[in-house]
């Protein structure tokens, strides 16, 4: 037990890190929040609202709200575009921070998804000052090299979405209208309607392919990502609500629950969307940037071809691509799926929160991060 500095470092500013930071300040603990990228919020700050005639409880707006709370909380000190270089444990932790390697393309300006991001814009090298939107910060001016001292560490470094290039038969990157669930989230957020990347037109026939990268014995990924059935169905429902002409199919193995009141949700979505219980084998391009899927027909096991205007790969939750480095710097073992092991936490003063320890949606991430904070405060002796 140690509570010398009254400060905890939270590493990663996704919903897990934001929740952890916020909960710590509820008990008057100072937080040093270290975020590798230029913006707080992690993956879920770019998600779309998936409401149809009702809120579908996707949790995206909760992330927005949590971010607003965190940026207005004086007890939280944020280090953007920063990573932990070294961690030395004595009776406290001595931490050396370094600028992260995250870059913005020369001459480009990138924008945060949320209005609560600060800065709102980050510019790459060679951007003329006159062209910059107000409040923009240059990438080279970002990043912290501070040396700090903290009592405990919460690692909330999140996940990496599955890289669809690994499943080469789908040809991701080759066909314009083949996108990932992550891209569709961002498209809907910024355009309200689903649009095809090739021509900006509203697609009529849309396919979602589930379990891309997850539940895949060949890849050794023996886990369900827990969120992709939910986001695919919710986005499909939202698209259909806004455009009743949309003809949407979901190709799947097993449909997972979305959360509370799932049976009601599922009955409704089954009337809006076609569910096909098979996973397409490969994808070919057609004229007009349409795509054809080849899949085995469930009823008779023969191949079938079907054309779509837009195909969405429901990519899953994989261990953060930096996991090896994180595991070394923070001295955390990996579990059998390659995520950070959260069982070891407790005595070492280093705790794990959120998807860094395995797949979970926003609601579960909020709940489990609360628990991580509880354990952290127990370690600090702030609670008993």
């Amino acid at each position, binding site marked *: 037990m140690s509570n010398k500095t009254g400060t905890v470092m939270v590493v990663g500013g996704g919903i897990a890190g934001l929740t952890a930071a916020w*909960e710590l300040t*509820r*008990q008057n603990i100072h937080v040093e929040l270290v975020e590798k990228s230029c913006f707080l919020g992690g993956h879920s700050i770019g998600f*779309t*609202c998936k*409401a149809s*005639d*009702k*809120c579908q*409880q*996707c*949790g995206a*707006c*909760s*992330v*927005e*709200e949590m971010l607003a709370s965190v940026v207005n909380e004086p007890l939280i000190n944020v280090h953007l575009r920063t990573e932990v270089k070294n961690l030395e444990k004595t009776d406290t932790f001595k931490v050396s921070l370094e600028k992260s390697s995250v870059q913005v393309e020369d001459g480009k300006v990138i*924008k945060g*998804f*949320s*209005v609560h991001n600060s800065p*709102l814009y980050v510019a790459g090298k060679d951007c003329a000052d006159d062209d910059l939107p107000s409040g923009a910060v240059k990438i080279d001016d970002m990043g912290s090299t501070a040396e700090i001292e903290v009592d405990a560490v919460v690692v909330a470094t999140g996940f990496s979405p599955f890289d669809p290039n690994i499943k080469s038969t789908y040809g991701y990157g080759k066909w314009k209208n083949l996108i990932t669930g992550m891209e569709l989230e961002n498209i809907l*957020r*910024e355009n*309200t309607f689903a649009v095809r990347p090739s021509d900006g037109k509203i697609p009529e026939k849309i396919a979602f392919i589930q379990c891309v990268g*997850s*539940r895949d*014995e060949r890849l050794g990924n*023996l*886990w*369900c990502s*827990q969120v992709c*059935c939910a986001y695919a169905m919710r986005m499909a429902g939202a698209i259909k609500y806004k455009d009743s002409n949309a003809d949407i199919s979901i190709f799947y193995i*097993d449909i*997972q*629950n979305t*959360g*509370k*009141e*799932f*049976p*009601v949700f599922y009955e409704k979505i089954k009337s809006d969307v076609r569910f096909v*219980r098979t996973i397409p084998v490969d994808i070919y391009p057609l004229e007009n940037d349409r795509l054809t899927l080849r899949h085995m027909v*469930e*009823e*008779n*096991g023969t191949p079938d071809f079907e054309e779509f205007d837009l195909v969405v790969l429901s990519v899953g939750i994989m261990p953060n691509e930096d996991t090896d480095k994180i595991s070394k710097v923070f001295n955390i073992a990996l579990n*059998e799926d390659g995520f950070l092991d959260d069982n070891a936490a407790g005595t070492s003063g280093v705790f794990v929160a959120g998807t860094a320890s395995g797949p979970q949606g926003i*609601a*579960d991430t*909020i*709940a*489990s991060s*609360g*628990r991580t*904070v*509880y*354990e952290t405060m127990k370690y600090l002796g702030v*609670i*008993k």
Partner: protein
Amino acid sequence: MISEGKIAEKSMDMIEININKDVLVVGAGFAGLDSAAKIAAQGYKVVFACKDAELPDSGDEFKKFVESGMVEIMTNTSLDDFSGVTGDFRATLAKGNERIKKNFGAVVAAPKYSFEPLNADYGVSLNGKVISQTRMEEILADPEEKEKLKAGDGAVFAFFNGLARELDPCSTERALRSILALQDIENCTAYMYAGNVKVASRGVERLFTEARNKGLVCFKPQEIPVVEQNDDYVKIIIQDPVIRKDIELDPDYLVIDELMNPGQENIETAVNLRIDADLDGFLPSNNVHRFPVNSNRDGIFVAYSPNDAANVALRVKELLGDGIKKVPMDRGVVDEKRCTICLTCYRCCPHGAIFWDNGAAVISTVACQGCGICASECPMDAIQIGTFSDDDLNENIDKAVVSAENDSPKILAFCCKNSAFEAAGAAEKFGIAMPAGFKMIKVPCAGKVDVELVMRALVDGADGVMVAACHEGNCKAEKGNIYAKWRVNEISRRLEAMGMDKNKVIFTNIASNMAHEFADKVNDFALKLKS
């Protein structure tokens, strides 16, 4: 510009009040004991009340607190009466004929739920051959019964899983753990007939793969299987779609899946504590603003899991602290002279913040969330909301309409501060194009917008009025958006009756993170008003 129309909220004076530091935990659900122990560890006295005669195995930590008197256990006890507000709840606990009155600062609801076998869905009854998942687990836990399985030629087990109803990963995990245990017994084999195999929980896909690699055959029939059953015989028939033939199996045991059932206790708890439940009968309502353990009432928390128990401990510590709470003064105020005790506000307050004193309604400063629903619904106009009084709002409306640009339709949007106000602010900051004549008025909840406010904007000269609320099911005040929608419909009807264009006033739903969608909606409205 939008910002001119954004009228600042007045800041509110805060006062300190003393609150009760004892906590009531009701219900012997899995997380009840855990919550009680974690709260007691923070130094708060806990009364743990449940209807059961005996507690489940409670663990050493819990027992320690019982011995030290930090946790008082009341078995065979139910909640007879419950009133008050956060920091000062008044409970009457009924134990036999005894009625015990106690006051609490916070309450944790941890109702029990059960697992019900779904045999009726398959038209079979439980007997020696058709058994529930729970019975299966009992057999595997009993060395003698388990030994019997080994004797003879072994046994064939068929597991039904999620064929008639959507289950949850917990029930899949239970089935898979039993299957893996059976696979370790010589000559035992297992088949699974599944709907959607629910693997969305840590480790379950790995168990599923392991079981299949050890020989589990998993059928996913399109229809519920036909089952023939008598005392010493059971047969399962499914149609194989590929070979178009029936596949028959007569297992030694058919294991029936179980569904989580909230039962009576959840609903009773909801009714007693005046908190919302979801459509399945679990607490609280299905609303992201309740993540992870909140209910619609301040100071009442819900716990079902170990994660919940930890979060409840955090919330209780934050709320009770050292017994002093800072709250805004006069969030909502009732004019005693006008109040006729019609009960309207009491019924419509989503946060249980209204009670009675001296012949008038009183709004609790601690429990009130300032949504303003009561103020809009009160037939006597007896209620004012501190930072959003009618005078302030009227003044804001007048200013906004006067200052709006004249060359495009003047649009006045009443924006809920939790959603539309955020989205509109983001649209402005990101420079998304909006009509020049757009102005907005911040409201605490769309439920605060009443007919008078909208009419005032029209009389002032607005060409169009928009009431923008959170999506249904996403309202912090649970129903504020529904009230707002009703009122807009009512206004449209009145406009029509007066021979005016009823489309001058519209209602819309928007989430806080959807700046572009909000701008689209306003631009659409402007176009319609122009034509």
